[in-house]
C-alpha cells in the first residue's frame, strides 16, 4: 500500500510537470503569434498610440517574456487564469459559466459511445464471422470515418429541418429545454466515439473468447451468460477500460467541433471564438484547464487498472 502511495505521488508530480510544460509551450505559441493583441482589442478605429499604450500596460504586455510567464504561473497558483482581452471578464468564470453545456454534452456523448460501442462490440464478437458481425463492422467503419461536423449537419438537416423533431440551434433554457437541445449534439458526439469503442471492444472480447479457461468454463456447462459475465468480460475489461479513457479524452476535442456545429455556447466554442478574436488569455486558460483534465483522466485510468487487475498494481510497485 505504501508503494502505491509513492507511485501515486510520483504520478501526480509528473502530471504537474506536464501541465507546466504544456502551459509554457502554449505561452511561447501565443508570444510568437502574428499580430499584436492590443490592435485586436481596440480595432482599427480607436487604435491611437495613447490608447494602445494604456492597454499594453494594463495587461502587462510591455513586460519581458519571462516576467509575463511568471505572472501567469503566479495567477495559476491562486487559480486565477487572468482576464479576457475581449470582454475583460475573468477567464476562469468564462469557463465555469459554460460548463453547463460542455459537461452534459461530453458525458452524454461518452455514455452513448460506451453503450453503443461496448454493446455492439460484445454482440459482434460473439457472432464473429457471421453476417451480423460484418454488418456491425461496416456500420462501425461508417461512423468512424464520418467527421463529427458532417454527421452533425446531416442530423440537423434530417431531424431538425426536414422532420422538424429537434431545435436547429441554441443551447436552450432550463433543464428539460437544455436536455432537448442537447439530444442531437450528444448523439453526434457519441457516434464517433462509439465506432472506436466498438472496434476495441470487439478485439478484446474475441481474444478473451479464445482463451482456454473460457472454453473450459463452457465445457463445464455454464450458461453463456455466466461465461460472458464471469470469464470473458473479466478478461476484456482492462482493454475496454483503456479505450474508455481514450474516448473520454477524445470527447474534449469532439465537444469543440460539435458545439460550433450546433451553435452551442460551451467551452469548446469559447476556445474557437477566443482563437478567432486573438483573445490570448482565454486561449491559454482553456488550454491549460484542458491539459490538466487530460492528464487527470489518464491518471484516473491507470489507477482504475490497478483496481480491475491487481497484477498491474504489483507491476507498478515493482518498477
Amino acid at each position, binding site marked *: 500500500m505504501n508503494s502505491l502511495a509513492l507511485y501515486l505521488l510520483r504520478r501526480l508530480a509528473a502530471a504537474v510537470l506536464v501541465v507546466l510544460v504544456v502551459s509554457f509551450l*502554449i505561452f511561447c*505559441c*501565443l508570444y*510568437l*503569434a*502574428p*499580430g499584436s493583441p492590443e490592435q485586436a482589442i481596440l480595432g482599427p478605429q480607436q487604435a491611437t498610440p495613447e490608447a494602445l499604450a494604456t492597454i499594453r500596460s494594463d495587461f502587462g504586455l510591455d513586460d519581458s517574456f519571462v516576467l509575463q510567464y511568471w505572472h501567469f504561473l503566479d495567477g495559476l497558483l491562486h487559480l486565477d487564469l487572468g482576464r479576457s482581452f475581449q470582454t475583460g471578464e475573468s477567464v476562469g468564470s468564462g469557463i465555469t459559466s459554460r460548463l453547463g453545456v460542455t459537461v452534459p454534452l461530453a458525458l452524454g456523448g461518452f455514455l452513448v459511445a460506451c453503450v453503443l460501442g461496448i454493446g455492439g462490440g460484445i454482440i459482434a464478437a460473439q457472432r464473429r464471422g457471421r453476417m451480423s458481425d*460484418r454488418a456491425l463492422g*461496416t456500420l462501425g*467503419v*461508417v461512423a*468512424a*470515418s*464520418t*467527421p*463529427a*461536423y*458532417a*454527421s452533425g*449537419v*446531416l442530423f*440537423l*438537416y434530417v431531424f*431538425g*429541418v426536414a422532420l422538424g423533431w429537434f431545435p*436547429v440551434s441554441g443551447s436552450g433554457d432550463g433543464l428539460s429545454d437544455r436536455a432537448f437541445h442537447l439530444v442531437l449534439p450528444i448523439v453526434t458526439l457519441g457516434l464517433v466515439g462509439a465506432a472506436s469503442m466498438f472496434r476495441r471492444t470487439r478485439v478484446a472480447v474475441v481474444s478473451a473468447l479464445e482463451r482456454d479457461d473460457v472454453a473450459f468454463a463452457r465445457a463445464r456447462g455454464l450458461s453463456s451468460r455466466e461465461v460472458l459475465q464471469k470469464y470473458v468480460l473479466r478478461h476484456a475489461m482492462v482493454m475496454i477500460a483503456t479505450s474508455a479513457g481514450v474516448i473520454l*479524452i*477524445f470527447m*474534449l*476535442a*469532439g465537444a*469543440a*467541433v460539435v458545439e*460550433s*456545429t450546433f451553435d452551442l455556447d460551451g467551452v469548446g466554442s469559447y*476556445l*474557437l471564438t477566443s*482563437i*478567432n478574436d486573438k483573445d*490570448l488569455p482565454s*486561449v491559454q486558460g482553456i*488550454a491549460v484547464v*484542458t491539459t490538466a483534465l*487530460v492528464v487527470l483522466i*489518464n491518471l484516473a485510468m491507470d489507477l482504475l487498472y490497478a483496481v480491475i487487475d491487481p497484477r498491474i498494481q504489483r507491476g507498478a510497485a515493482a518498477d
Partner: protein
Amino acid sequence: MGTTTIGSVATRRRFRVRPGQALTALALAVVVAALFLAVFGEVIAPDDPRRVDLNAGSLGPVSGHLLGTDQLGRDILSRALAGARTAIFGPLIIAASTVVISTVLGLVAGYVGGWTDATLSRVNDIVYALPPLLVAIVVVGVLGGGFGLGIVILVVLNIPASFRSQRAASLEQRGLPYIEAARVLGLSRWRIMRIHVLPNIMPVVSSSFFIAFTYAFVDLSTLSFLGLGVAPGTPDWGRMVAESRILVFENPWAALAPLLLIVATAVSANLVGEAVDDRIAAKGRGR
C-alpha cells in the same frame, strides 16, 4: 467422388460474389472517382467555382445551377467538384509523409534497439498522449498558419500510431533466422534494414497508410470547417459545409453535396484499406 465435391465447392466459392466484395468494389470505385475529381475536378466543373454572382444567391436547384448556389451566388456543383483538390490532396500528403517518416524511425527503433529505441519510443509516447484535433486547433488557430501549417501539425501528430506498428513489426523481424544469416554474412545494418526488413513489414506500412489517410481526412477537413484550414473563398468540401449550413432552408444541397462527398470518400477509403489488410492477411496465412 470426394474430389469432385471439393472441386465444385471451390468453384462455387470462387464465382459467387459476396456482399462484402460488392461493397469493396463500390468503395474502390468511389476512391478512384474521388482521386479523379482531385486532379480534374476544376477542369470538368461547368462553371468557375470562384465566380460570385450576388443576383443569383441562395438559389435552389435550377437550370444552369444543378445543385443551386450559395449565399454569394457561386455554383454549388462546380465548387463541389473543384473542392476535391484540397480535401483529398491534403490528407494524401499527410498520409504519405507520416508513413515515410514513421517507417524510417520505426525501422531504426525496432531493428537497432537499445538507447536509440528507448529515446525514440519515449518521445513518441509523449506525442501519442496529445489529442490530435485539439492540439491542431490551438496551434493552427493561434499561429494562423492555415492549410500548410495544418498539414505539418497533422503529420507530426499522426506519426506516433504509425511508428508504433512499424517498430513492433521490425522488432518481430529482428529475431528471425534470416536476419541472423544476413548479419553473419557481414551485411551492414542499413542494408539489412532496407533490403531485408523493410519488404517484410510492408503489409503493416500499407495498413498504416490507409489509417493515416482516414484520420488526416477527417481532421484536416474539420480544421477547414472551423475556418482554420484553407483560405477563405477556396472551394473545399469542409469549408463549404461550414459556409452553407445556414442555407439549410433555402438550398440544403449547398451543404449536403460536399457533406455526402466527404462521407462517401472517407468511408470508401476506410473500406478499401480494410480490404487490402484482409487480402494481405489471407496471403500470409496461405504461405
